[in-house]
């Protein structure tokens, strides 16, 4: 139960992190002209941050301890 609880708390932290990443003002920092790898900055940022968040969620479930 202890392990499950800790994972639960990490997930809540990840949710809070996600809310920060996909919200004003962080989003506004990337809402600027220009490109990243040939892709408009905002679009590139959102997809990279999104993928990273999913990666962290996977790590939280799949790694033991």
């Amino acid at each position: 139960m202890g392990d499950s609880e800790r994972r639960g708390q990490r997930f809540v932290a990840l949710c809070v992190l996600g809310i920060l990443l996909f919200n004003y003002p962080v989003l506004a920092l990337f809402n600027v002209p220009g490109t990243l790898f040939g892709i408009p900055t905002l679009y590139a940022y959102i997809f990279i941050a999104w993928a990273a968040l999913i990666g962290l969620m996977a790590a939280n479930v799949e790694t033991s301890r």
Partner: protein
Amino acid sequence: MLHGTVIILTAFAYLGLLFAIAYFADKRADAGRPVINNPYVYSLSLAVYATAWTFYGSVGRAASDGIGFLPIYIGPTLMIALWWVVMRKILRISKQNRITSLADFIASRYGKSALLGGIVTVIAVVGILPYISLQLKAISSSFSILVQYPEIVMPGNAEPQSMREDTALWVALILAAFTIAFGTRHLDAAEHHQGMVAAIAFESLVKLLAFMAVGVFVTFGIYNGFGDLFTRAAAHPKLRDLMTPLGGVAGGYASWVWLTILSMMAIMFLPRQFQVAVVENLDEKHLNKAIWLFPLYMLAINVFVLPLAFGGVMHFPDGRVDADTFVLTLPMAEKQEFLALLVFIGGLSAATGMVIVETIALSTMVCNDLVMPVLLRMRALRLNERRDLTGLLLGIRRGAIVLILLLGYLYFKLAGEAYALVSIGLISFAAVAQFAPVVLGGIFWKGGTRRGAIAGLIAGFAVWFYTLLLPALARSGWLPTGLLEHGPWGVELLKPLELFGLTGLDQITHAMIWSMIANIGCYLGVSLSASSSADEHRQASLFVDVFRHTGEAGGARFWRGTASVPELHNLLARFLGPGTAEAAFREYAEARGHRWPDDALAADAELVHYVEVQLAGAIGAASARVMVASVAKEEALTVDEVREVLDEASQVVVYSHRLEQKSHELEAATTELREANERLKELDRMKDDFVSTVSHELRTPLTSIRAFTEILLEDPKVELEQRRKFLGIITKEAERLTRLINQVLDLAKIESGNADWVESAVDMKEVISDTLAAMDQLFKEKKIEVRAQLPDRVSPVTSDLDRMIQVMLNLLSNAVKFCDAAAGRIEVALTERDGSVRVDVRDNGRGIDPENHEAIFSKFHQASDTLTGKPHGSGLGLHISRQIVEHFGGRMWVESRLGSGACLSFTLPTAGAT
């Protein structure tokens, strides 16, 4: 060439394939080898979230808003991060209570209220209608576009259709037939539709692949990759602003935030999501993989949305082509027949998947929470006397499916044409978001009451209806538009789109703000002001503390009354069919070690609760309660009694915790006692051994002293020479006796801790030299050659000088005793290393068997001469020496092999090192 017939045949072949998959999965499930019992199918079935809205609508939204379509997928990702906490709880509650729908869940939580279940059902059906109409619109318009191939004609601009050519109606009817075949083949007590889930998972794969295929084709086929596409889009006048879309477009950040919140609610409370995530879930553990696989699916299906949207805008610059159709029209414009057909099938997958699961979920709600409670209350129908009601239940569900799809079609005809796909879907999202306060509040807050839930739902739904549905109908021309422009009866403050003068927001944000204020406000306000019934107390506790009340029997504690087994059995048989009822009773009996129907079961609270839960799976919690009450006489519990039971339960938990702790402590104490006892026994045995050995040792010299003195006493004629010899033996034996007694006393003192230690800095080199000098005479007598290797100087050790001399004497006399009789040689070495001084005493005797290396240090161990059997010493010397060395923090050991002498060594830490 794509002829209409080809398209229709392909579509039917695809639906046939789906049906085959479902049939196969159902057969496997019946055989006990389910194909869907793994986390991957579960994750894919969750992807029923991606509908025609995602498939066609996202691109349409992206073409006008840029990033505006994404909150719909980022919101669920954020929500799913909370699933570990929230969804696991909902899953556990639902499994324990056999929850079969969202309406059932809410009704069950608030005291199994039939009224509440009915309200939830109505909200869900009305709220979801726009969403279903969206799917019908997508299928029919994608069909009518594809059938015009190679021309690209928008459906609105085509000739008006006759009834026979009204594709949306045909689609609705075909889907109804298909859903009936899928979802209501038979009645399952747990509402599992394994075949349907398998088909949905397959559809999720198809739509993902189709969308990716067209995305890759546009990005890399028409354009040269992402970089090229975005560079050209940035130069396009219509798209330039979409490169930094937030801040200006469509409400900017406020809209973004509200869409995120809205979709967070939708992923939990859309009836079809609840169906696949909760009702169809076979194993809680599947959630672990789904938590990241499902967000990954959403990420994958969104990667190509922007390229498709921008590609479409650049490809059809005149704006005659609806952006919602870019996914289909782009491959058509490039003359990719096969790809266009694949896209059509992908869109069909997305739309049919949604319609099938949604209508099954809604039909279960309509049947269990709307129709059955009413029918069961109408005494005129005499339902209580019908033998088998399974046919009736299935009939109601089938009727509900047809009705829901026809209503969806009606909405499409009434309001569907005026809105883009995404806007239609968002209206439904806002409706199901009304469930969030009562569900989330219900599983984490015991204070929420039935009246509060009813008030909150009705208030939220009313505001939703007024601010979203009414304007949708008005814009389509079914209500006067003056309502929107001037408010009802000309009251400006009540304008549906600017309620109480709130302006500057987009429609969804505006509606969400007001409906949530009304919903949460009424839910909290009414809950806090009114008292609740016993049923509500019980259910609140069972839901909120679900992880504490384990097992289905959790609810049985609250039931008091009388019932009879045959009546309960009959009741179950009427609703589930005789076979299922029989199986359920057998399972119950076997779990308790009885055999059904041979053994008599007790019609106790547990059985009554079991029957109610089984029944709830088929007809919903509220109806099940009514039906069980009709055959069992229940004594109503008062609120105080429920509270008492709850208190008892929590006290029992506390007690059992304490008991467990106590028993752990007891166990530990017992182990300690047992160990102490063992030690005592061992000591006792050692003491006995010691006493008997010591007496034996004392008797030996005494016997010989006595024997010789007696000879001398009785025979005065013994010769002088003989006499001298006898007296010599007597002296030697007496000396031995004295030595032995001294050593025993010494040992007793050391072991009891009463020895007098005089500590000082001792130079081991001096000790060794002195001892060797003292024993010089002995060595000479025995003709033993002694070699000493002593360094010039060693660090002093903290020790007792006399004791050290005693140790050296012991070791050396030991060596003398055992070294070679003819050519004895003893080597003494003193070395210093790593903060300790080491002394080695080596003899050249016959050596010691490795087995005995430890034994020689034990009390009274005597290496007896195998020839004479006479012991060589007291057997205490080495033991005492080791005790002394260890007292000063050192170590003593022996290294030897039989036949090559022995080396006794010890170390002592130097004075500086300790």
